[in-house]
């Protein structure tokens, strides 16, 4: 009967996107898609990365000292979070929850866009593995077995699905017991796997490295013949040769973000809550369904392009992987639209709680007494504009990337015809993304 203040736990969401924005965004996506299709260049423009070579910067970054310092810094941050995880208190003020769900998961996106493939060099798993190899005096690249190239990033796709499950389905995911269990298994599978297969396993199986390196394909940094270049992000993206399993990686990323949004609709909440089937079953099925919808629709549109191929050596099964780079901007747009406010607000809260990882009243970094500035929630129109811009920009870049790939892969007189199904699928992703943000 009395109103008692609770501790805030970040269940504050963005307001739904106004329907006018949804319509504007969908219309913009359609108009720009057709504009690109009919007015854009007819010969490939991004066959090479181009851009400006930066040999000086390359020399600096390739110094062993630079790598050691950067890796050590990231490792220290992770070790601090690990301390909070294994020795801290099971309260919502423990920074490890925000560390995992905001800093690690969402923060990797802007960092990878801005810094490029930095995670490959600072991934704490690699640091840990290298340390173990130093102790054992083995070569980090050599394992006990050889990892076939066919494996590609399939293990990472499974790992990303597992993280999606943890983030969206797992009951009690903001308790230490659950998080410890998952963290230990992540460490074991990756470090043991690296011992067995060599360092390549980490690139193949770490979900966070797979996410970071996929997003980094759209960054302005690219290494060409060992030298770092500052390039047009679209040109850089076009250079990417996706490993096997990349379609699965991208489908899981897009599908899990879409499911996160879908699970907030009133229809879903009502259906799951009023049903006798457990919500875990519902959520797992929903997550899988979204991933399959993305994976299947994209693959079908890509396989359809095979009939107009310019190189007879390509099989239909090659096309989804060849086209997967065009979905990367859409994945990034979705992530920005859905998680920006989470990163801003929960990211601050994590930074504040980072000063007191064990819940003992410390103030190591001086941030423990600061308050979260949640002003972003008082400007819902600005948030809506950011969300709209992210989704539409992701769509436009995706369409351009698909166009460029089509010019390279298809016969010249069929280059436009061959793109239609992919264009339709991308418009479908964009309009669905906008509708989900409107979340009826």
């Amino acid at each position, binding site marked *: *009967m009395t109103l008692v203040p609770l*501790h805030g736990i970040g269940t504050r*969401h963005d307001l739904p996107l106004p329907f006018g924005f949804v319509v504007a965004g969908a219309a913009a996506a359609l108009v720009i898609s057709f504009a690109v299709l009919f007015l854009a260049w007819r010969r490939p423009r991004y066959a090479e990365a181009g851009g400006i070579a930066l040999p000086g910067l390359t020399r600096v970054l390739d110094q062993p000292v630079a790598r050691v310092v950067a890796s050590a810094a990231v490792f220290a941050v992770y070790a601090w979070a690990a301390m909070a995880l294994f020795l801290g208190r099971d309260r919502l003020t423990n920074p490890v929850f925000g560390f995992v769900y905001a800093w690690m998961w969402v923060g990797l996106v802007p960092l990878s866009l801005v810094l490029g493939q930095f995670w490959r060099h600072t991934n704490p798993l690699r640091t840990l593995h290298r340390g173990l190899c130093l102790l054992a005096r083995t070569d980090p690249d050599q394992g006990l077995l050889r990892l076939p190239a066919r494996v590609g990033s399939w293990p990472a796709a499974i790992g990303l699905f597992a993280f999606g499950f943890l983030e969206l389905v797992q009951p009690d995911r903001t308790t230490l017991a659950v998080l410890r269990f998952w963290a230990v298994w992540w460490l074991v599978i990756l470090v043991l796997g690296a011992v067995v297969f060599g360092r390549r396993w980490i690139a193949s199986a770490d979900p966070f490295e797979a996410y970071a390196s996929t997003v980094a394909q759209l960054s302005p940094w690219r290494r060409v013949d060992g030298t770092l270049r500052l390039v047009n992000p679209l040109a850089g993206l076009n250079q990417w040769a996706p490993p096997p399993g990349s379609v699965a990686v991208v489908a899981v990323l897009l599908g899990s973000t879409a499911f996160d949004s879908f699970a907030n609709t009133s229809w879903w909440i*009502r259906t799951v809550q009023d049903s006798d089937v457990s919500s875990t079953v519902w959520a797992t099925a929903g997550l899988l369904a979204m991933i399959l919808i993305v994976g299947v629709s994209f693959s079908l549109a890509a396989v359809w392009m095979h009939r107009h191929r310019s*190189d007879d050596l390509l099989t239909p099964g090659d096309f989804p992987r060849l086209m997967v780079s065009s979905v990367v901007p859409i994945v990034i747009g979705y992530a920005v639209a859905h998680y920006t406010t989470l990163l801003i607000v929960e990211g601050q809260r994590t930074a504040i709680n980072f000063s007191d990882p064990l819940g003992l009243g410390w103030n190591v970094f001086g941030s423990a007494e600061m308050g979260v500035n949640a002003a972003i929630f008082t400007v819902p129109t600005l948030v809506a504009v950011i969300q709209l811009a992210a989704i539409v920009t992701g769509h436009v870049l995706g369409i351009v990337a698909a166009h460029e790939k089509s010019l390279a892969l298809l016969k010249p007189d069929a280059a436009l015809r061959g793109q239609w199904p992919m264009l339709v699928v991308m418009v479908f992703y964009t309009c669905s993304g906008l509708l989900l943000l409107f979340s009826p």
Partner: protein
Amino acid sequence: MSPPVRRSPIPALPVRGLTRGLVAAGAVVLSLAVAGCTAASEPVAVPSPSSTSAPPAASPSASSPSASTSPSASRSPSSSPEASKPPDAVTIDITIADGKVTPSGERVNVEKGQIVIFNVTSDVDDEIHAHTAGDGVEIEVKAGRTVTAELVATDVGSFEVESHADGKIIVILNVR
């Protein structure tokens, strides 16, 4: 490795054509965005009508529990607001029975500064958590007795109101 590029028989379009096209597209986008913004700035909040199954004694300033034998009737969504309630309050009737909550995940539009009144009837002891800005509020409910509580929607945003016992979301307050 991408296949070698063949010279296209279609002459490459002059850059001007692409620029013109993108400018045209940009103008369309801008006009649509303005249209969208105009639509978005219209007042949206409509006090959601409450079921009249709750006794009329639940006045907006009452914060003490009223012993009531009102049955856990289902909501009638088309009932009109009662004349005795002040115009700037939103009433939400909550029923918790057999492990199910009513309403279940419904979105309620609220204006900033509006008072939100909860009439809660439950067949088990429970707590209703409204995760509004800052600390949020908590309403304790005892089995069988209707509890009335109110809060003022001081902050803009989308807030969940849930039942603590089973974690089910009752309503989502969209405060604009």
